[in-house]
């Protein structure tokens, strides 16, 4: 006899507003059907009547855990449409700020994931405090804690302050110590290991067929990272390794993100050493924008949650069509295939390790 349970839109454990209709046979899951669209506000339609640089603040509110990554994706698309070259120092500044944003986004994921597994706010308060320190550093640079809007055509809006290098190095030393402590705390904990090892296994062929991206794809054995395969900015000069695990369960996805945070620390230190002197400011925003040269533009970036892509058909002053490929949209669609045959209590371990942000899914 099958029972149907509604895990409703407002729930203390789901990552946002998501309704799951779960069909159970005893304790085993037969089918999961996500209902989405509770946060849909039509960003692609809103951008069709705004000037190019007016939609930058719309793009930031798409993924509110890592807003600078989306704003960088959009401004890069506009720069390619207008044929504008980015200054050399500005590339390094963008890379440093984006890697800090990646660490902050993964810390937010870690706190919510451990909260879902029943740790009752211990990891939550520790990881949120570390994220707060990173947000304070970004506030020193750009002036705001959460929505920065600091990318301009050809550079950034404000250059790094004088004492940024020593503050950043102090913060990175502190974060390295904390990450060692987190690993020691979590990987020897029997409850954490039992709830994440061998739970929600996704094989390599299924991962490619389902179209998942980001850490979910890399945890199943596929070596694909946009920073290595379609490199942009200065990632060819910096030396890093994309982290790949082969097992494909929740523990592998956790391990990939933990290692990615450590690689980001190395990237920031290298970029701080190689950064040249000079000017990093971009064009200020004016009413009449530079003339547009290309008709269709495609840009890819590695967002913290996966691979994001913008496809834009341009008009004179505003985009004719803006199509956004959100990584969380397609990651959430894989939940149905992964959760078949698992127990009901494992559903939140799987959903937490896929890391969807609902404003990104609904756009």
């Amino acid at each position: 006899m099958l029972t149907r349970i509604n895990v409703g839109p407002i729930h203390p454990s789901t990552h946002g507003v998501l309704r799951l209709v779960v069909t159970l046979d005893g304790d085993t899951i037969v089918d999961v059907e996500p209902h989405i669209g509770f946060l849909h506000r039509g960003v692609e339609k809103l951008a069709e009547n705004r000037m190019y640089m007016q939609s930058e603040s719309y793009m930031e509110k798409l993924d509110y855990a890592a807003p600078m990554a989306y704003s960088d994706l959009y401004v890069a698309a506009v720069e390619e449409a207008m044929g504008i070259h980015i200054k050399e120092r500005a590339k390094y500044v963008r890379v440093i700020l984006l890697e800090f944003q990646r660490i902050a986004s993964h810390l937010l994921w870690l706190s919510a994931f451990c909260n879902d597994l029943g740790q009752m706010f211990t990891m939550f308060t520790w990881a949120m405090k570390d994220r707060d320190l990173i947000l304070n550093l970004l506030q020193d640079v750009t002036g705001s804690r959460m929505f920065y809007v600091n990318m301009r055509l050809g550079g950034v809006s404000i250059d790094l302050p004088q004492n940024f290098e020593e503050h950043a190095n102090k913060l990175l030393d502190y974060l390295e110590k904390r990450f060692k402590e987190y690993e020691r705390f979590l990987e020897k904990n029997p409850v954490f290991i039992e709830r994440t090892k061998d739970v929600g296994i996704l094989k390599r062929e299924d991962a490619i067929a389902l179209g998942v991206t980001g850490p979910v794809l890399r945890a199943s054995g596929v070596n694909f990272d946009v920073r290595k395969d379609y490199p942009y900015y200065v990632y060819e000069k910096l030396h890093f390794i994309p982290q790949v695990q082969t097992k494909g369960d929740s523990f592998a996805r956790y391990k990939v993100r933990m290692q990615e945070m450590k690689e980001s620390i190395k990237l920031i230190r290298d970029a701080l050493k190689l950064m040249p002197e000079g000017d990093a400011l971009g064009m200020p925003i004016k009413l009449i924008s530079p003339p547009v040269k290309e008709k269709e533009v495609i840009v890819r970036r590695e967002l913290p949650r996966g691979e994001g892509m913008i496809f834009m058909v341009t008009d004179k002053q505003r985009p004719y069509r803006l199509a956004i490929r959100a990584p969380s949209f397609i990651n959430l669609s894989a939940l149905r295939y992964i959760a078949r045959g698992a127990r009901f209590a494992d559903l939140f371990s799987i959903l937490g390790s896929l890391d969807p942000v609902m404003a990104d899914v609904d756009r």
Partner: protein
Amino acid sequence: MSDERFENAKREMEQLVAESLKNYKGPVGAFFTNLKEATKAIASGTIRWSRKNSLWPMQFGLACCALELMDFGSSRIDAERKGYLLFRGTPRQCDVMIVAGWVTKSVAPEIKRLYEQMAKPRYVIAYGECAVCGGPWWESYNIIKGIDQIIPVDVYVVGCPPKPENLFEALMKLQEKVGGKIED
């Protein structure tokens, strides 16, 4: 003749004295009446003081402002020192509903149902531009322009997103409203 007028005057005086003595309960009776009034005043003041110092909020993070709400409950700006303990999941145990994030036409019936399930006295805080007036999504086809089109709001907090210190000040203003200092 003077005897009749004297008799009438005496009768009127007796009536006046008898009327004024109707509500007189003696010295012990007067003490108990005053005690009843005094207890009522002390009790309502105590109830108001205890209500305003233990408002339990319901977690209602819909979108980006929810991250600042999580920061408000964690260790830098501690919400628990003023009595806002333990963000609860169920509306039956809460007093305050903090709406953080934009409200679309699909979520609106759920919010209305949750508001009606809260027990009185109940209060609502609109946190962030999207809950106050629709925010940057003013011209979208799927958005309700402000939460006060569905439920009554007590305090509005403005910003995108407002800093957690602003929410702290808003909760202190709500405390004054509950405790009776701000006349409405």
